[in-house]
């Protein structure tokens, strides 16, 4: 037996091809009896070293032995044309098919080699980082998401004083007057501070008053960085906080 590198074969067909090549056999007339015996002896070695995939080789050995047995018997099998069927035919067909792809594999290998000599732009010049432009694509949203977004706006201001005055009511005009007094003292004021501890109707009317004053250009509104509060300030050069004459 020749020294053989068991892992040099891709599979049982590859090993079989090796025998055929080595002995310069006619692939259409493989001396199955001889090859089967040799094949078996290799498979035994494989079993001993417990090589991965040895099962595939054992299967092929079984196929070879089966063919060998059929060759010993007078042929009963006939093909469509009434010719006796060579028990080796199917195996030969498989070998040839395998051979085609084996050659194709070599051609791909050549392409791979050629390709390895080609280099592409390296990351030093990766312009992607420089020019990337991220566009946000919104995931599907539901109406409920919309409603949930409104939640903070729709919940009651916490800790309303329970001692509510009966029929408390404020008009926007009243609160414009109130704001005028507040702003007359000077500096920018947080709206939250201005309406601190006041009742809801008071807050709403005052808020509307602020909007109206802002609309008239009598005061300026500022939003803080966290956007949790806003500030009001008398508009410079427009000190009249008098209500607009309708």
């Amino acid at each position, binding site marked *: 037996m020749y020294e053989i590198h068991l892992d040099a074969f891709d599979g049982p067909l590859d090993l079989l091809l090796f025998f055929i090549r080595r002995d310069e056999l006619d692939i259409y007339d493989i001396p199955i009896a001889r090859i089967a015996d040799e094949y078996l002896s290799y498979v035994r070695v494989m079993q001993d070293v417990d090589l991965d995939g040895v099962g595939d080789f054992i299967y092929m050995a079984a196929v070879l032995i089966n063919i060998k047995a059929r060759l010993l018997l007078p042929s009963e099998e006939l093909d469509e044309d009434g010719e006796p069927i060579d028990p080796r035919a199917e195996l030969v067909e498989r070998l040839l098919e395998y051979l085609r792809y084996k050659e194709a594999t070599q051609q791909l290998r050549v392409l791979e080699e050629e390709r390895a000599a080609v280099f592409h732009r*390296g990351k030093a010049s990766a312009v992607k980082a420089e*020019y990337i432009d*991220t566009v946000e694509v*919104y995931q599907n*949203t539901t109406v409920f998401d919309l*409603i949930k977004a409104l939640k903070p706006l729709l*919940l009651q201001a916490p800790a309303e004083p329970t001692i509510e005055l009966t029929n408390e009511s404020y008009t926007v005009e009243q609160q414009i007057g109130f704001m005028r007094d507040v702003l007359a003292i000077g500096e920018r004021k947080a709206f939250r501070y201005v309406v601190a501890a006041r009742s809801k109707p008071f807050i*709403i009317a005052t808020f509307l008053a602020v909007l*109206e004053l802002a609309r008239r250009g009598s005061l300026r509104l500022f939003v803080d960085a966290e956007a*949790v509060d806003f500030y009001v300030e008398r508009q410079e050069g427009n000190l009249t906080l008098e209500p607009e004459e309708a």
Partner: protein
Amino acid sequence: MESTDFRDLTDLDRVVEALVFATDVPIAAAAVTEVIGEVLGATIEEAAVVEAVAALNASYAQIGSILCIEHVAEGYRMATDKRMAPYLNVFFRQERKTRLSRSLMETLAIIAYRQPATKPEVDAVRGVDSDYAVRRLLEHGLVEITGRSESLGKPLLYSTTPVFLERFGLASLDELPTLREIEELLNEPAFSKERAELLVLKDLLPPEPTDSADEATP
């Protein structure tokens, strides 16, 4: 950029070109001379590399290429003409899946319920400036400008778009939950009807002396 007259590229130029093109980090002149030394067994001056870069840049300019070799702190690398930025921006545009931010969603909800709504109205309900949010919603095609209010300053009116309906799976605006439904959906003890009304009532701003401003339609 170095101003060098165009000349035929030499083999050294070509090696420099290949290395500068393929390198993953800017390559120093010294690294180039090292490679050449190793391959050819020849020693070249770093000045020759500098010269090669100038020759390459002159060649690129000669044919009107947008390529150029730039010298950054650590060495050389290939770059494209800045004028190509618009094309590269579009090419590299990446889509990032994201949800609408809370502030965008809030603003969108207010516009959806009050439409057509002005920005001052939205600001009033939210208590914060909604300039950015409205701009983003416009960019995403979720709201659109549908006219101008008659109120002072004639602020723009915003309404939701068909894209909005599509995104939220609504056949029409009628399918938006009503205030009562919202109350049920939220199932919050602290739910404030007053605030809810603030959201949908059109007369948030005091009525204009002349006529009802918010009736203005596009």
